[in-house]
């Protein structure tokens, strides 16, 4: 036991970091798609659809991600659905991200001034056309900075997938530490790698926000 941190350890950590990025992309892709549906459902003209999607959002937002992960991996296994760590982590993160992105995007859709809806309605556009051609293009502009900002949360939250045995950056750090017993050095490396992934995205999000302020067109009602 013991020994020193060598190239193989770093390679192992690098591999874990790649899976952190992979899991983040899965969560963003799956959660983004599902979140888009949630956002549309939250502004649906049908009350039952609005209510159902609101219940979903509240349920997920009121549950720790760790609990969702446990349910997906250990809970489902106990009732006969054994998911792989990757599937359990991917599905849990997708459910989680969908609720938050859905809520962020609902806000963006609703922040497009109401007269824009009326103008589109006055031109005889159908509800779908109003949404796709008038409202969403404006909402997407508004949504970009907070969505990019939320990416940081996703990346950091993937570390929780380590508890179901999924070997991403955090879990690979734990494994390396189990053989070296140098927690300070190893977790410091882990922290630096997370920071290196998150900080550029934070910066980019801030830049997008600043650019929004002096965009080619602003969205304030005239």
């Amino acid at each position, binding site marked *: 036991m013991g020994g020193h941190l060598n190239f193989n350890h770093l390679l192992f950590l690098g591999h874990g970091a790649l899976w952190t990025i992979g899991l983040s992309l899965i969560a963003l892709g799956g959660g983004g798609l599902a979140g888009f549906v949630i956002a549309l459902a939250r502004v649906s003209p049908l009350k039952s659809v609005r209510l159902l999607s609101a219940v979903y959002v509240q349920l997920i937002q009121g549950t720790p991600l760790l609990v969702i992960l446990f349910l997906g991996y250990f809970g489902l296994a106990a009732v006969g659905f054994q998911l792989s760590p990757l599937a359990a982590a991917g599905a849990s993160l997708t459910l989680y991200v969908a609720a938050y992105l859905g809520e962020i995007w609902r806000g963006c859709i609703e922040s497009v001034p109401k007269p*824009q809806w009326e*103008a589109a309605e*006055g*031109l005889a556009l159908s509800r779908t056309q109003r949404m796709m051609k008038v409202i969403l293009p*404006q909402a997407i502009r508004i949504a970009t900075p907070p969505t990019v900002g939320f990416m940081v949360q996703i990346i950091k939250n993937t570390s929780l997938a380590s508890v179901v045995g999924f070997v991403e950056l955090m879990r690979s750090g734990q494994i390396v530490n189990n053989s070296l017993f140098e927690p300070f050095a190893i977790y410091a490396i882990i922290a630096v790698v997370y920071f290196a992934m998150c900080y550029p995205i934070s910066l980019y999000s801030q830049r997008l926000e600043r650019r929004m302020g002096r965009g080619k067109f602003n969205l304030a009602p005239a």
Partner: protein
Amino acid sequence: MQQDTPATSIVSLRDVQKSFGSLKVLDGVSFAVERGEVLAIIGRSGSGKSTALRCIDRFERVDHGEIVVCGHRVDSPDVDLRALRQDVGIVFQSYNLFPHLTIEQNITLAPCSVKRMALSQAKELARKVLAQVGLEEKLHAYPEQLSGGQQQRAAIARSLAMQPKVMLFDEVTSALDPELTAEVQRVIERLAAEGMTMVMVTHEMGFAKSIADRIVFMHRGKVHETGPASILTSPTTPELAQFVGTGDLKS
């Protein structure tokens, strides 16, 4: 939904009532607009004139009464809204151009997606309606790059591109300074001269007097006085006399 209406009435309201909560904004409003006619609705803020206009295009639902617009029973719950709005053009006080689209795209959007017009044909149409409002050179500009008056003229052009049978103007110059107001009014005057049927809510008494075939003066949710533009200079009710007395009648 085509139904029987008097042969020439494009818009008719009969005993229309509408409340917002406990506030009765329209209390038995009736008027009709004939083909080619220009009707100006005037009155104090809160008299119900904008609400009456918005009821014509079904932006507000009425509680009671009958509204027929180009043969559509607007008060009926199963009116075909998209058919109604192809016949009715509406222009708002705040222009409401789509900021993410160029002026050309603003104009071609509805003809292309609602009437399934070919893009090349729609672009031709955009040129034509922009020429009508004197803005050909702004085809590829974004709304934000235009002055308020230009934006409002572009909004009028956007409405015209759908070739409506009647145009509604909801205080379209209220956000503009006098110079820009004049340029928008010239466009509306030209439309009137070309025979467009129009209903306008306006605070510009001079403009109403010069362009309207008929005036509807609304007061407390009712049509208080109606008649030719001359009622502005010789009102028969004290309320209208007081209202125009405070307005600016120089034209």
